[in-house]
């Protein structure tokens, strides 16, 4: 049995679901950020897998590199936000950050 596109996509889907699960269920903001990283990387696996099995060019891979860079920047910003959240609430529990409530 050779490893094909379906395997990659399945892995990607499992990774995405795990990330989503973490994002939705965890109270700790840092854990949620980790979930987001999982989701981003699930997408990256998709990019690379499609690039490898369909066109045979490097577009998808380059895109993945850009995504990693963007994710790193986003992580920095997100951590800064978390720090500010902590400054304000003295906690990083997301259940307490509900000032958007209508």
């Amino acid at each position, binding site marked *: 049995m050779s490893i094909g596109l379906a395997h990659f996509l399945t892995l990607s889907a499992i990774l995405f679901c795990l990330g*989503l699960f973490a994002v*939705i269920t965890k109270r700790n903001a840092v854990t949620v950020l980790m979930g987001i990283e999982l989701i981003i990387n699930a997408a990256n696996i998709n990019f690379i897998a499609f690039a490898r099995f369909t066109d045979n060019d490097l577009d998808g891979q380059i895109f993945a590199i850009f995504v990693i860079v963007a994710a790193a920047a986003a992580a920095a910003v997100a951590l800064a936000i978390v720090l500010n959240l902590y400054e304000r609430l003295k906690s990083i529990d*997301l259940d307490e*950050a*509900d*000032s958007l*409530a209508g």
Partner: protein
Amino acid sequence: MITNAIIILLLPLFAFIIQIFLGKRLPKQGAWLPTGVMFIALFMSIAIFIEALSQYEPNNILAQASWTWFSFGPVTITFGILIDNLTAIMLVVVTTVSAFVHLYSFGYMHGDERYSRYFAYLSLFSFSMLGLILVDNFFGIYIFWELVGLCSYLLIGFWFEKDSAANAGKKAFITNRVGDVGMLVAILIIFTTLGTFNFREVFTGVADGHLSGTLLTVTGMLLFLGAIGKSAQFPLHVWLPDAMEGPTPVSALIHAATMVAAGVYMVGRTFVFFTPDALLFIAYIGTITAFLGATIAIVQKDIKRVLAYSTISQLGYMMVALGTGTPTAGLFHLMTHAFFKSCLFLGSGSVIHAIHSQNMDDMGGLRKKMPITFWTFLIATLALSGVPPFSGFFSKDEILISSLVFGMEHPAHLVIFIIMLLSAGITAFYMFRLIFMTFFGEPKDKEKYDHAHESPWTMTVPLMVLAALSIGPMWWGWVEHLLEKPELASFATSAAGSFKVENHELTHSAHFIAMVTSIPVALSGILLAAIIYYWKKISAETWGRRLKPIYNLLWNKYYFDEIYQATFIGGTLAFSRLSALFDANMIDGFVNAVARMTARISFVNGLFDLKFIDGIVNFVGNTIRKFGAQLREVQTGKVQNYILMALFAIILLFIMQQF
């Protein structure tokens, strides 16, 4: 000449404006300004008069000019100035009397608290009177007519702290208004039938027969109604005696020489309008007035009131002259009367100034104390009594001739001449009664007599000038000739048919009869006065008691004031009360009912608004609020919830895509 006339007209207006706003701040309260201005106007008027003399043509128009004032649609109203011989003479008369009255007022009004305002009013009056004689149309004459009425009101009520003065002002104003309504209606008739206000165009229109018959007669009578009011003719004469509440120089200027003569001037100016019927009406009104005035004057005790009734009587004479078809005689008498009557009033002012009383019972023997006042007063009295060679003799003689000629042509109306002659005798009698009671005999009030003194030069100079103008047979004849208006007469003839027949033989014999009757009548009047009041051969008191009813009738001025009080004033008041009742009950009731009904309807309306409209609005609002309250629960503010919901939504979309 037009420029000069405009300057003459505007000078007093200029003086008025300066004086009314700045008078109190000017040195000596500014009295010299209106006075100086009037003397300038006097000299300019004399220049115009000399020009009229140099041409010496009857019915000569020296100058005229008119400007478009405004126009609406096809109608253009022009405003202009007309200078003919009549205007030239009137200019001299008005400015002379006015200038010397200004000068006289220096002394008479000295120390009055409203000294500067007094001169301002005099200026305004001079302006209005000059305007009245200069304008060339009915519209203008009406404007200035009302302006002189206003000035008269202001000056009669000048000492308005006194109730009697304030009331006299109101009486004069309201009585005049009655006459002015007639005049206004006449002017409106003229404008609607002839489409113009201009004298010359109106006269032409009448001569061409565009306005004729009964309407012309009525127009003439209505026009004359204005003159009845302004010239204090029966039955609107009641205001003039009361007008004596004003300062005496004002009485001389306005209520003797100029304004009251405006009615005569106006009738003389517009003589064309008067048909034989209208003229007869004028003649009889004049006759009644002349007789009433003269008889009331016999018993008056107030020196100014005697003169006021005399003025009424003399104005009646002028009206008779107009009514019997000789306007020249009437205007001639207007002139002579202006000079001698203003002299009399100023003389009486001088006496009042000296003894601080107007009652002749307080006077007597003043001849020695006030020689200048006495002599000038005597000259003017002789003129008024119609004794030759004083001016009044000539003018009054003309009027008697006119009425006699009229009587000879229409024997039924000979009564006018007889009453005129009788009134002339009465005039001489009451004037000399005044002279004897004031200047002769023993002083009745010793204290006042001792304080009496001759007036200052500002008061005596005007007296002397005006007295000098009351002598002068040599010049009055040619002045009258200037006034003749053949053109006017021809207008009148064509309009009125062969009304006035020029009959020289008749005129000549009338001249003789009038002369030989009037002089003895005047002299016998004087003689009777002398017998009663100088030699005291007949006791006035005894005869007064014997003729008690007549005396009472005269003393109460024929009960005119009482009759008017009972009928017109009482009637007006009763009507006002009735109107007030009607107003309080009917109108107010109706208004209140409407108000109540509106309140009721509004109440119902309000209920509908509150329950129904508000109900709908509130329902919508409440529903939306409830909905919103439920919906807000979804907005937890927790990001994870939102993500979860997004996830569900996507899953839902996927499921839906399968179907």
